[in-house]
């Protein structure tokens, strides 16, 4: 089984990559990665991107206009006569 994984093509390995990154699995231990510089570099980059994305946090507030419009819409909705 290990030999089969070692003999994977880059394309075959990369098809599995999305399911390996970010799951806690040690994809770097995959036999193909250990024997392929290109896939090792790719895996490292994609893991770096995924890790950086997890650390992104909300950084922006909406403009004050948004609350003003929410307020107006709520008042309009409540000013409407009941459907019943």
């Amino acid at each position, binding site marked *: 089984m290990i030999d089969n994984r070692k003999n994977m093509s880059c394309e075959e390995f990369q098809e599995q990559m999305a*399911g390996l990154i970010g799951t806690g699995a040690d994809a770097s231990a995959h036999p193909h990665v250990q024997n392929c510089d290109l896939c090792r570099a790719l895996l490292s980059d994609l893991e770096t991107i995924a890790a950086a994305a997890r650390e992104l946090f909300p950084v922006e507030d*909406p403009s004050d206009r*948004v609350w003003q419009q929410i307020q107006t819409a709520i008042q309009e909705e409540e000013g409407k006569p009941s459907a019943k």
Partner: protein
Amino acid sequence: MTPSRSSVPTPEATPSQVERPSQPAVQDVPAPAAAAPLSPDADVLARAQAGDHYAFAQLYSLHKRRIYSLCLRMVGNVAEAEDLTQEAFLQLHRKIATFRGDSAFSTWLHRLAINVVLMHLRKKGLSLISLDEAMEPTPEEGPGRSFGAPDLSLAGSIDRLALERAISDLPAGYRLIFVLHDIEGYEHNEIAAMLDCSIGNSKSQLHKARLKLRDAMRTFPRREGRR
């Protein structure tokens, strides 16, 4: 009785800073000493569910940044993101009494906002089922050429602002999956259910999105240098 809703306060202050009306808008919220311990958010939520406009404004203040950032990352456009934030909070206002605490309120609101964005994208004609076909890149720009070249690797470091920009530049379908999985932390089975696509499709889209981001991040310093 539902209190008067004729005046909605501004949401700028934190919960502890919001000045209450002299006559409390909600009469049936138990006094803190007699009630089970509630987090500040839970107390605000309970009052908002009872129709307290000040509490709803506080909820907006507490959650607006996260919801707006979610919308902005999902659609990549400030005006659209603001419209969607507005719609999400309007829906929250309509539905807040139906929240029963089966999940955390922030999770519930988050999911509500995602549904608002997905509805919007569907109305715009983005097929969430056939994302692969809709977003298939052209051969010359596709991720297929992204086989790792060690001399161009990211060397384990990423500029956060560059990543934010690269995410906003992703095609809509890629961006959607990437934001939901890698930023918001949803699993592929959850994403598949939300988008009505297969788990394999979700994984495939995510992989392609990451490849696109990798390409963008590797060229970022050169792009910046030209500006």
